[in-house]
């Protein structure tokens, strides 16, 4: 456990701190997935360093062949394609979560990195702020 960082260092750090968004819920039954994506895009539009993580039922947000309009949901999943526009390129999916759900690595967005539980966790730990949705 480290002590609080000296303030002169903190002052320099705050400007380039990294933010992670950890997604844990399936996309449609609640507004959580959409509100998470909105958050990611805002941080991206302010040119903040931001990474997206998908674990547990959160992996259902990124799998391919979904059809939201079929159940009268405005297809916010399409908005994921805007991530590249905001240079949000660090997108991680937990391999164990895919395996547990018998899901192939078939995603509706490119750039996804599938990581083992341990690598996923280590990557997550490198961020200064983590928002869980």
């Amino acid at each position: 456990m480290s002590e609080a960082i000296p303030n002169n260092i903190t002052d320099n750090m705050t400007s380039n701190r990294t933010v992670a968004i950890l997604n844990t819920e399936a996309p449609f039954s609640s507004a959580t997935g959409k509100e998470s994506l909105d958050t990611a895009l805002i941080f991206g539009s302010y040119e903040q360093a931001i990474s997206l993580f998908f674990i547990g039922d959160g992996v259902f947000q990124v799998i391919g062949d979904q059809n939201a309009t079929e159940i009268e949901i405005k297809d916010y999943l399409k908005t994921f394609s805007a991530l590249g526009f905001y240079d949000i390129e660090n997108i991680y999916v937990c391999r164990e979560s895919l395996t547990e759900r018998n899901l192939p690595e078939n995603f509706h967005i490119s750039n996804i990195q599938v990581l083992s539980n341990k690598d996923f966790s280590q990557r997550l730990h490198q961020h200064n702020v983590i928002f869980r949705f």
Partner: protein
Amino acid sequence: MAMLHIIRSSGYNNNVLAQCLNMLLPNDSILLMDDGCYNVNHKLLLKAQLAAPELKIYFIEQHATARAQKNTAQTFSPTTLTDVVTLLFQHDNSITWS
């Protein structure tokens, strides 16, 4: 970086506790608050502590007492919200598992 995992729900009702433990790295600590205090005797937590004896698991004593929850093994540390403020700054970051 040392992370504080804040657990606010019962591990008997969802898999948030299991998910949190999967993300645990050495130097991390766990804080049970609100319904997270129902986990004071949860097998997964006790197992995690056995596997890593240096793992610190805190619980808000007031929240546990209100729920008639006692950490029978007495290996978790009772704490207060005021001490949680210190914990937040002793760790580099935190995840809230609601």
